[in-house]
C-alpha cells in the first residue's frame, strides 16, 4: 500500500450532494424495478383491460361503449397518466421514498455520508432533488407510454388521432407530479422514523392501501371520522386527480383512490402542504437524531 497524492476540488453548477444522490439512486435497480412496475400497472389498468372490456362489448361507465372508447383515445391520455397515481402509483413511490431514506440506515451509508462534510439537511436536500428528478422522469415516461398506447387504440379503432389540449396536459403533468411527490415524501418520513426499509415500506403500504380506504369507508357511518377521512393525505391527492379529469371511484368504472371531496384549488394547497410537512419533518428528524446504528 503506497501513498500517492493527486486530489482536487471540482467546481460544478450542480451541487455535489445532488450529483452524489443522483448517482446512487439512478444506479439502484430498485428504482428501475418500481418504475417498471408502475409502467406495467399503468398500461394494464389504463389501456389493456379497459380496451379488452370495450372489445368484449360489455363496457360500464358514463357514455356506455362510446364513452369507454373515448377515454382510451390520445386526447384523454393526460387523465390516464394521473388517475392511477393517488393509490397504486402512490403506493409504489411511497416505497421508493421509504427505501431511499430507510436503506441508508441498514447499510450504514448515512453514517458515511454524514461524515463527509455537508450538513445533514443539505445531504437530504440532495436526496429530495434526486427523487424529484426520478419522479419527473417517471411521469414524463408515463405520458409517453400512454400517448403511444392511446394512439395505438385510435389507429386500431379507425379514430382520428387528436392530440390532448396542451393546458390539460400541463395540468395533468403537474397533478401527477404533486401526487407522486406527496407520497414519496410520506415514504421518506416513514423511512426516517423506522430507521430501516422493511418496517417503513410495510407500514406505508398498510396505511396507503388499507387504513385510508377503511377510514373513508366507515366515515359515512361515524360523523367525527368524516372530517378525519376528508383530511387524509390519500383523500387530498385523490381530489387532485379528480380535479384534472380522473373518474372518481363513486362513479361506475371509476378509479380507486380518486374522489371529489375537495375542489381542485384546496386539494392542491393541502397536497403541497402535506408534501412540505413530510419533507420538513424528515429533515428535522434526521438532522437532530443521533446516528448510533
Amino acid at each position, binding site marked *: 500500500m503506497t501513498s500517492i497524492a*493527486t486530489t482536487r476540488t471540482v467546481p460544478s453548477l450542480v451541487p455535489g450532494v445532488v450529483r452524489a444522490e443522483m448517482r446512487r439512486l439512478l444506479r439502484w435497480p430498485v428504482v428501475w424495478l418500481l418504475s417498471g412496475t408502475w409502467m406495467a400497472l399503468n398500461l394494464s389498468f389504463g389501456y389493456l383491460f379497459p380496451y379488452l372490456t370495450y372489445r368484449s362489448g360489455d363496457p360500464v361507465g358514463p357514455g356506455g361503449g362510446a364513452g369507454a372508447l373515448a377515454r382510451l383515445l390520445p386526447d384523454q391520455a393526460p387523465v390516464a397518466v394521473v388517475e392511477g397515481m393517488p393509490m397504486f402509483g402512490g403506493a409504489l413511490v411511497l416505497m421508493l421514498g421509504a427505501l431511499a431514506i430507510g436503506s441508508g440506515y441498514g447499510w450504514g451509508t448515512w453514517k458515511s455520508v454524514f461524515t463527509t462534510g455537508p450538513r445533514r439537511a443539505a445531504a437530504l436536500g440532495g436526496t429530495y432533488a434526486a427523487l424529484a428528478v426520478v419522479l419527473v422522469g417517471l411521469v414524463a415516461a408515463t405520458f409517453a407510454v400512454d400517448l403511444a398506447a392511446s394512439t395505438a387504440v385510435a389507429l386500431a379503432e379507425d379514430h382520428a388521432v387528436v392530440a390532448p389540449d396542451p393546458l390539460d396536459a400541463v395540468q395533468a403533468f403537474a397533478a401527477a407530479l404533486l401526487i407522486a411527490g406527496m407520497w414519496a415524501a410520506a415514504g421518506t418520513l416513514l423511512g426516517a422514523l423506522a430507521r430501516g426499509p422493511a418496517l417503513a415500506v410495510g407500514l406505508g403500504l398498510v396505511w396507503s392501501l388499507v387504513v385510508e380506504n377503511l377510514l373513508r369507508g366507515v366515515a359515512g357511518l361515524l360523523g367525527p371520522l368524516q372530517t378525519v377521512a376528508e383530511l387524509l393525505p390519500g383523500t387530498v391527492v385523490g381530489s387532485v386527480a379528480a380535479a384534472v379529469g380522473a373518474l372518481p371511484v363513486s362513479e361506475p368504472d371509476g378509479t380507486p383512490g380518486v374522489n371529489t371531496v375537495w375542489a381542485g384549488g384546496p386539494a392542491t394547497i393541502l397536497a403541497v402542504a402535506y408534501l412540505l410537512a413530510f419533507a420538513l419533518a424528515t429533515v428535522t428528524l434526521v438532522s437532530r437524531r443521533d446516528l448510533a446504528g
Partner: protein
Amino acid sequence: MTEHVVSTHALTRRYGERVAVDGVSLTVHRGEIYGFLGPNGAGKTTTLRMLLGLIRPTSGRATVLGGRPGAPEVLRRVGSLVETPGFYPYLSGRENLRVLARYRGLDDGAVEAALYQVDLTSRAKDRYRSYSLGMRQRLGVAAALLGQPDLLILDEPTNGLDPAGMADMRDLVRSLAAVGQTVVLSSHLLGEVEQVCDRVGVVAGGRLLVEGGVAELRSTRSLVLRVDPLVAAVPVAHRFAGAAQVSTEDDQLRVAVDPARAPELVRALVAADVDVHEVRTADRSLEDVFFAVTAPSNGTAPTSATEISEPSRLNEQGRLTEQGRLTEQGRLTEKGRAV
C-alpha cells in the same frame, strides 16, 4: 492551527442508566498516531462517534481540528471509518467511492488514489455486495483516505483482515503519519497498538484509565524475582502489590511496583520463609500496563469492574481476545468461523 488536533474534556454519554462514555478527557497531538485501546464495549466507538458529530455527548465537550465535532468545515478535513464500513451494496467499490467523492467535492482522481492506497484497484469494478470482509474493510479505509484529510479516525481498521492484510494496514497507517496526517486508531489488539501508535489512551468501562506515550508507559518498570518456593511467594506478592500487579512466568515472579520498593518486598518474602535468589528490574510490556490499569483492584479502575475483567483476556501472543479469538497463527476467528 492548534497543536491539539483532538481534545475532549469530561466527555460523557449516557444511555438511560448506562454510562457508555464516562468523563473522557483525551488529547491527540498533530501528526501522531494515537491508539485508543480497550476491550469491546469499553466506549471506544461511542467516543469516536461523538468526535465525528454522529452522536451528541450528554455532557462535556470536544474540539476537533479547532472546531465543533460534526461541523461541516471540520468534517471536510476528517476521514473516518467507524464500526462497519457503510456502502451501497449494489454499486461497485469504485462507484461507492465516487458517490462519497461527490459529497466531498472531489474528482475521480481522488477515488483512484484511495483505491490504489488500499490495493483494491483490481477489484474496484466489482459490486460491493460481492466483497469479502477484508475487502469491505479496505474499501472503508479507502473512503476515509479520500482527499487526504488532516485527521483520520479509524475504528478497528484491521477488523476482518488476514495477517498479511493487517501488516499492510499497519504499514499504511504509519505511512499516513509519515506524510503528516494525524491518525486516531481504536483497537482491542495490544500488539497492533504497541507496533503502530505513538501515544495510547486505555479505555475500559467508559473511562479513560491512562494516557501517554507508548514508550513512556512501557518504561514504567516492574520487579522480576526468582524465588523458592514460588507458590508461597505469590500470596505474599498479592498482599504486597495487589493480585493484578502480580504475574508468574516460568519460575519467575513479576511484580509491577516501583523498583524502589524492592527491599520492602524482599523483606516480606523472607518473612514468609521464601528464599529470594534474584531480584532485577524490567520494562513492562503494554500488556502489563493494560492489566495494571484495568484490573479491579486498582484504585483508578472503573466501579463496574466485571465489565472489563470479564471480556478482556490476553492470550500468549499478547493480544486481547474475547469473542474474537486469535489462533496461534494470529488469524482472527469469530465463534469458529474463519474470516
